[in-house]
Structure formats: structure tokens, C-alpha cells
């Protein structure tokens, strides 16, 4: 639930205010019928927009259909009513099934003027009423025609979108803007064709990519080819070349991409915690897989004492682990090799665990702060309410002044600091959640592969 603001903000960036409100309503209510969503969103928009203009249902439903087409919202499983259900009593818990095809089918509702609805899926719609009633425009009350068809926000799709965003920004940081644009075009093309947990996308030929580049981005075909080869040869292995037909077939390797993102997170954590020398040692061990103490010193060009110190610090935090290789069957310590290695999966899991702990700490602290100052907060709320009501009934300056002075200056300061702290804690929660998302998707991709 920490991620709700991020979902809503993404929809706002993609689909504007209408889309944002639709997704917000869906997230708050879990699942809703389409007409209920449309009505609520239209009401809310009407409030915020200037008086006199009312929001058109059609616009809201258009945005809804757009969201369904790009799969950001999906249908919930429906109550399954088998054919012979009339005889016996229905089972104690209804079984909810949904057909894959129907997930994104929007029932045809025309919400303005007379409408006759066509239900686009009939298989499990047995329990729904099929009454046809004409609809009167906007503000009037009307019975819910698409009863039983519930929609929910498709969180998977949002995750896919975040992942794509992360990859694109990583490419932009590593290379330049053009390559990130190419990356984005490739990702957009494979949005609907690849499922969200596939290890890599379908192969895309370079001709297709050329055609689907955004308009006004005139780079020649040759330049595009060069960029693609550059991407494919990059040691990060985001893009791989899988064939030569159609001017070169390229795939995006999600596994590797997520792995490098997670490793980058690990590296930056170590750098921030222990310093850049430690980060150098870490990257070294990561690259060479297994290293002895002496070799670490040599390769990293760091004096022995410091290297030792840093290695042990990292070992104690479980970023690095020791691998024993015995020379003799009795594992005598004097005759065993001890190699330092990085087990990425376990280090990532450990970091994720720490992220969770930090989020819970942040939440705890925020609640503690709010509870400590509850009295003050309530007082300020009451004063605001009084001010608002007095203003509504027409007040004079003197009265307002007096009411505002009910909160003394030190109290005001206290309120200010409180607000600042709470805001900071909140913002940190949101940002820790970004890291959590990255690490979680990496772990998910590795476990699925096996």
C-alpha cells in the first residue's frame, strides 16, 4: 500500500487528471463497477472544475476504455454459476473465475442518451440482470446496468511500467538520451506481446524499431543500427542480438537488466555506508567471483590493513561471504583456502529485509511523533475550523487576528517542526519503497527462472 501514491502519480502522468482519479477510486475501493467509477469521478471533477461546467460522462468513460486497452485496469473474477445450479443450494463460498479473454473487455455502455447495452461476454454472466432501461443524462439517479462486472487496478501492469522506466533511465545514465529513446520504443512495442514475468521480450527486428520510433526523432537507419549494436555489445547485456533477419533481431533481457539494477543498488548502498574504497573492493569481488585475502589487496591496490578492515566490516554486515575450500579432508583451518565471494541473491534478500525494517521504523516514528503532539494538532484543527466558519459568516480583521492568536508563537513553531519531520518521514517511506520495488522484482525474476 506504500506504493499507491506512485501508481496514482504514474497514471496522472500518462492519462491526466481523469485517469488519475479513476485509478485512485479503484485503489481505494478495491473493486467497483464501471458505472459507479465513472459517476464518482465525474462528480469529483465537477467539484474541482469551475462552477457552471459539469464533467461529461463520455470523457471519463473514454479514459476508462483507454486504461482498459492498455491493461492498467482489469476485470475481477466473476461469480461462477454452473449450469445445473438451480437444483442444489449454492456452495458456501462462491468460486470466482475469469476467462483470460474477458479480462480487458469493456462492456458497451453509452451513458448519455438512450442506451441499449450489449454485453460483450456471456459465459459467466448468468447472474446479471439484463433489464434494458434508457439512461437519462448525468445527474440523475439510475440503476446500475453493468451489475456484477467489477474492475480492479492491474498492479502487475503498473509494475511492468515501473520496471521499464527503471531500465530506460539506467540506459540514459549509462549512455545518452538517444539510446534511451530507442530502448523506450522497444519496450513500448513489446508491452502487450510479452507477459509481465517473461525473462525476455519477443525478438524485434530493427526495421520495426525504426518504424516505431517517435515522430520527429529523425535519426537515420544506419545510426539506429549503430546504437543497437552498441547496446547489444554493452557488458550490462540489457539488449541481446538474437538473429539477423529483418536487419537484426534484438531482444531485451529482463533478467539481466533487473540483476544489474539490483547489483547497482547494492553497490551504491555499500558506497554510502562504508566509503568508495569499500565499494571498489566489493565490485572487485563481484567481478572476479572468488578471491583470497591477499589477492584482494593486490587487485584493489589498497594497503593490507585497510583492506582487511573493510572486508571484515562487510563480512559482518553479510554483504560478502566466505567460501571454504579445504585442502585436506579434515578441514584444518591452517590448510584451507578461504575465499571471499558475493552471493548476490542472499545479499539482495538481506538488503530487502533491511529496507522493510527501515520502512517500519519510519512508520513507527511518524506515528510516535503524531501521537506526542496530538493535543496540539487537535487544537490547531479546531482553530482552523473556527476561522473558516467565522469567515463564512463575514468577519472583521480584528476578530480573525484574535482567533489566530489562540495558537501562541512557540506552539506554532512546534507545529512547524512537527509538520516538517512528518513530511520528511513520509517522503523517505516513499523512496525506500522504490528500492524495495527494484529488489523485489529482481528476486521474483530469479525465483521464477528456476
Amino acid at each position, binding site marked *: 500500500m506504500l506504493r499507491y501514491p506512485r501508481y496514482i*502519480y504514474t497514471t496522472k502522468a500518462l492519462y491526466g487528471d481523469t485517469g488519475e482519479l479513476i485509478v485512485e477510486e479503484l485503489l481505494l475501493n478495491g473493486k467497483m463497477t464501471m458505472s459507479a467509477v465513472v459517476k464518482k469521478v465525474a462528480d469529483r471533477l465537477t467539484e474541482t472544475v469551475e462552477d457552471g461546467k459539469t464533467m461529461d460522462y463520455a470523457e471519463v468513460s473514454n479514459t476508462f476504455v483507454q486504461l482498459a486497452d492498455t491493461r492498467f485496469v482489469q476485470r475481477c473474477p466473476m*461469480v461462477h454459476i454452473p449450469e445445473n445450479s438451480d437444483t442444489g443450494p449454492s456452495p458456501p463460498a462462491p468460486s470466482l473465475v475469469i476467462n483470460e479473454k474477458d479480462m480487458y473487455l469493456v462492456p458497451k455502455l453509452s451513458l448519455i442518451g438512450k442506451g441499449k447495452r450489449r454485453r460483450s461476454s456471456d459465459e459467466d454472466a448468468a447472474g446479471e440482470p439484463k433489464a434494458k432501461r434508457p439512461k437519462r443524462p448525468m445527474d440523475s439517479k439510475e440503476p446500475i446496468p453493468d451489475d456484477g462486472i467489477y474492475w480492479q487496478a492491474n498492479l502487475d501492469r503498473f509494475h511492468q511500467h515501473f520496471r521499464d522506466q527503471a531500465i530506460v533511465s539506467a540506459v540514459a545514465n549509462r549512455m545518452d538520451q538517444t539510446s534511451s529513446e530507442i530502448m523506450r520504443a522497444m519496450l513500448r512495442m513489446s508491452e502487450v506481446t510479452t507477459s509481465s514475468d517473461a525473462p525476455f521480450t519477443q525478438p524485434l527486428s530493427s526495421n520495426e524499431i525504426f518504424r516505431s520510433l517517435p515522430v520527429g526523432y529523425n535519426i537515420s537507419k544506419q545510426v539506429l543500427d549503430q546504437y543497437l549494436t552498441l547496446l547489444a555489445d554493452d557488458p550490462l547485456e540489457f539488449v541481446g542480438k538474437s538473429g539477423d533477419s529483418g536487419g537484426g533481431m534484438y531482444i531485451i533481457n529482463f533478467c539481466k537488466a533487473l540483476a544489474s539494477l539490483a547489483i547497482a543498488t547494492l553497490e551504491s548502498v555499500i558506497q554510502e555506508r562504508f566509503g568508495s574504497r569499500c565499494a571498489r573492493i566489493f565490485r572487485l569481488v563481484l567481478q572476479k567471483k572468488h578471491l583470497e585475502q591477499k589477492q584482494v589487496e593486490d587487485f584493489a591496490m589498497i594497503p593490507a590493513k585497510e583492506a582487511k578492515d573493510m572486508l571484515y566490516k562487510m563480512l559482518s554486515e553479510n554483504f560478502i561471504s566466505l567460501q571454504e575450500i579445504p585442502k585436506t579432508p579434515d578441514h584444518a583451518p*591452517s590448510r584451507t583456502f*578461504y575465499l571471499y565471494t558475493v552471493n548476490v541473491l542472499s545479499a539482495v534478500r538481506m538488503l530487502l529485509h533491511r529496507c522493510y525494517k527501515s520502512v517500519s521504523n519510519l512508520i513507527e516514528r511518524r506515528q510516535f511523533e503524531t501521537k506526542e503532539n496530538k493535543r496540539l494538532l487537535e487544537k490547531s484543527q479546531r482553530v482552523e475550523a473556527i476561522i473558516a466558519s467565522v469567515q463564512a459568516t463575514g468577519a472583521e480583521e480584528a476578530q480573525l487576528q484574535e482567533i489566530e492568536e489562540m495558537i501562541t508563537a512557540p506552539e506554532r513553531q512546534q507545529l512547524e517542526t512537527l509538520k516538517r519531520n512528518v513530511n520528511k518521514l513520509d517522503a523517505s517511506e516513499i523512496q525506500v519503497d522504490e528500492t524495495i520495488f527494484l529488489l523485489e522484482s529482481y528476486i521474483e525474476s530469479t525465483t521464477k527462472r528456476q
Partner: protein
Amino acid sequence: MAGNKGRGRAAYTFNIEAVGFSKGEKLPDGVLKPPPLFPDTDYKPVPLKTGESEDYMLALKQELRETMKRKPYFIEKVEEKPDIERYSKKYIQVYKEEWIPDWRRFPREVMPRKKCRKADPKSKSTKGTDRVSSLLNAADVLKKIEELEKRGDGEKSDEENEEKEGSKENKEGDNDSDDANAEQEDYDEEEEQEEENDYINSYFEDGDDFGADSDDNMDEATY
């Protein structure tokens, strides 16, 4: 190798150089107390990201938190009554929204049924309770008779009470899977029975020694 452990001076069992210390070098001091709760770190954390999107998301988050509290899905824990009821409580009520869930999507048992009063004219429930109450009566009477025959006088009241409660619980257990209506009726019926049946209530007037008596008798009773 193991035999050398006790004798000799500090001879390490492994090659000390492999670990990284050379002989005679100063090792770090031993740890004498638990590490401080908030140790000073050499490297301070990176400042938070700030920007328009972060600000917007922050505002969204705080709004969402407030709106969530008003939703009917946010079921709050029932708090115990505080010592004094404060006057200000009347003004700080949170208004929850109405919600009528779609019952077709939920299991049947989740749906709360109306609690019927005794005089409720619902035919189903009265039929059920009639059956139940008659069963209760019959079973109780039988059990009472059985016990009266078996036990002595001193234990009668104790065991009868226990049996009666036991049988009542059994009956309630059977009815659990059916309507909650019947349970409500059961409770009502039980109270009626206890009131009608002077037998049990008055028997305890026997005395202050009742507790002591029953303890003694219990030993003899269990076979």
C-alpha cells in the same frame, strides 16, 4: 594435532598469516560492553530526493491516509471505554461512508443476519426453535432423571448443573452450522428455562458450605 592443545604457548592451529595478522602485531581491543544504540557513522546518509513529483506524491499519500480512514472497509478496533467520557469526543467523530457489499461474491456465512426477537413472526425460525427447545427439554429431563438415580444427594446439584450446561453447549454446537437466529432463540430459551425451573435455583440455598462439600464429594464420584 589435537593433543597439543593444552601444552605449549599460544600456537595457533592455522597459518596466522592467511588471516592477515602477522605475529606480535597489536590486535584490536576486546569488546567490553554492548555497542552503542545509535553509533556515530562516518558517512552520513544521502539527502532525500526533492522535486515536484516527490512533493505531489507526498501530498497524495497524506490525503490517501485520511480518506482511507473514512472508508467503510477500514474497520477500526473497538476500544474499551476510557475512564471519563470527554465532552470533546462528540465533536471529533469520523464519519464513515455507507457500504452495501455485493453478497453474491461473498460466502454465505459472512452475511450478518438480523437478530430476531422472541416475538418475531418469521415462520422458519420459530419452527426451528420450537424443535430445538423441545429437544432441549426432553434431553434435559432425561439426563436429570438419570443422574438422580445414579448419584447421591450431595452431588446432585453440582452435576446436574454441569450436565445441563454440557447438554446446552452440545445443542448449541449442533445449531452453529445453521442460522444464527436459532442461537439467539437458544439463549432466550435457556433463560426462560432457568427461570421456570425453580429446582436448580433454589437448591443452592443449602448453604455456605456448598463449595467445601462438593470438593470432598468429587473424589468419591469419579470412577
